[in-house]
């Protein structure tokens, strides 16, 4: 009796873990599936906190999801109609702009070369500069060439992501229940606790990051708009997106603004220092107020671990990996701590 019971138990545990491993492996091996899944999951985490408010107002869950979905659709259609032309224009302008940047950099470089030659008597080799320039332009070309490919998958995502998001919102609760039914008895409580903690960590982090990024993006956009700098909207979006990457992000966001300021207005112009002060102010507001209140409570990871996990994430998943690496690292830490307690006792 006891033997039979034990083998039955073992079967259940093996079945459960095999199922998980197969599912993860399958999704992992298909980036065409895993990327929209990941994006819709992130969107789900951002949107989901609004559902309880609607349910409290007396709507059924289905109706609440439909209301949220319709309002999301309307909200996202407005920017598509209004903003796409401006973004398109700005992007096109950037395309016209890049040669201007190139010539600016070249003349600046020649000037510096002259100055160095006059003052120190050393001639700087042109090779380094040329190589650097070729490297940058090559990479830019690669990005521009890849844009149609990106647009094609974007079209696919445009159909798949709303579909996934809708059913995540509507049935996410019951999906979780079905999966939990499969969990074997002896690891049920631990699994439920751990998966819930991990989900909460990731969800809270992404929600907080979304709000933080939009605050920074709005500050930059409004500031640049008030200063009358070109590409204000594009720079705001870039600042918001790069802000998601910890430590490195703000500098990445600052880079295009510095280039633009230098080329457009020159280093001594009030606009250039204005841009610098604006970015500095936005990041001070972010690091001084928004980050401590919203984000830091959720992940208490050492900065070294943060940087390491960002690098690992960017290596395997690119930009998406950079974004998702911090909550994953926090989740991993939690799981390791739990297993540690399991082995060594409390």
């Amino acid at each position, binding site marked *: 009796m006891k033997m039979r*019971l034990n083998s039955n138990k073992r079967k259940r545990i093996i079945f459960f873990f095999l199922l998980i491993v197969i599912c993860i492996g399958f999704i992992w091996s298909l980036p065409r599936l895993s990327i929209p899944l990941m994006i819709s999951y992130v969107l789900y985490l951002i949107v989901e906190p609004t559902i*309880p408010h609607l349910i*409290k107002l007396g709507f059924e869950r289905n109706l609440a999801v439909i209301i949220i979905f319709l309002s999301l659709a309307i909200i996202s259609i407005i920017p598509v109609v209004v903003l796409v032309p401006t973004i398109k224009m700005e992007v096109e302008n950037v395309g016209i702009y890049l040669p201007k940047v190139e010539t600016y950099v070249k003349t600046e470089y020649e000037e510096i070369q002259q100055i160095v030659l006059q003052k120190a008597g050393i001639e700087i080799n042109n090779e380094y500069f040329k190589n650097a320039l070729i490297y940058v332009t090559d990479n830019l070309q690669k990005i521009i060439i890849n844009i149609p490919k990106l647009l094609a998958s974007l079209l696919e995502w445009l159909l798949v992501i709303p579909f996934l998001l809708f059913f995540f919102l509507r049935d996410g609760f019951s999906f979780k229940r079905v999966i939990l039914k499969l969990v074997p*008895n002896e690891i*049920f*409580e*631990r699994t*439920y606790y751990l998966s819930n903690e991990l989900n909460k960590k990731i969800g809270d982090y992404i929600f907080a990051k979304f709000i933080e990024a939009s605050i920074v993006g709005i500050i930059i956009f409004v500031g640049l708009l008030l200063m009358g700098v070109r590409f204000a909207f594009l720079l705001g979006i870039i600042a918001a997106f790069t802000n998601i990457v910890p430590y490195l992000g703000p500098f990445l966001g600052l880079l295009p603004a510095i280039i633009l300021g230098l080329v457009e207005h020159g280093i001594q112009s009030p606009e250039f220092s204005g841009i610098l002060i604006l970015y500095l102010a936005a990041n001070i507001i972010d690091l001084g107020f928004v980050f401590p209140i919203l984000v830091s409570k959720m992940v208490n990871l050492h900065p070294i671990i943060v940087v390491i996990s960002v690098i690992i994430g960017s290596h395997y998943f690119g930009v998406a990996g950079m974004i998702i690496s911090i909550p994953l690292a926090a989740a991993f830490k939690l799981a390791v701590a739990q297993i540690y307690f399991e082995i060594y006792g*409390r």
Partner: protein
Amino acid sequence: MGGFKHDNEEVDLPERLHIGVIKYFWQSSPYNPSKKTTIPHFLRNIIVFKDFSDYELYLLSKFIHERTYENGEIIFKQGDLGIGFYLIYYGNVEIIVEKENPSSTSTTENLEYNLVTCLEKKDYFGELALLQENSIRSATAIAKNACKLIGIFKPDLDELIRVHPVVATKLLQSVSMIIAERLYSITKEVKVLKYKLSKMEQLNENEVK
């Protein structure tokens, strides 16, 4: 099907069907989700949930987990992290505690156990785990025969608080009621024990004198 058709066909049916009859056939239809109504019905019969309305019990029933256990299966172990409050749907559950003074051969197999109670249908256990932060189980629960338990876990409670605060409040009220009752009986017992202890101390002193 059988009892309805009579031998003689001339039985005059009522002109209009009775509401009760329609209701009966409606409820006995196999397409009716009668399975879903069993858990709210079960919860209705539990005393601590007496303040819940039918609809609230229905909402609560969506947030609970049904778990089945085989004979002798451990539900939770003493010293484990606990997050769940269990009600017994059917079957028997034994609550046992490891003995305080472990014998010299302290291998895990030779640990001695004290039986605390044997619980049966409609009983509940593990309610402290729902309220405590990082609750550690103070006893082991073992299924005595094939049984089905209804579990409410901490994440479910969090979700209930988020989505249906009224139901969550009532659930917490019920759990606090259980715990308050237990606390009351424990303080009573402590009082009696204190009294006995002081009596014994007095006796001791008298003997010493």
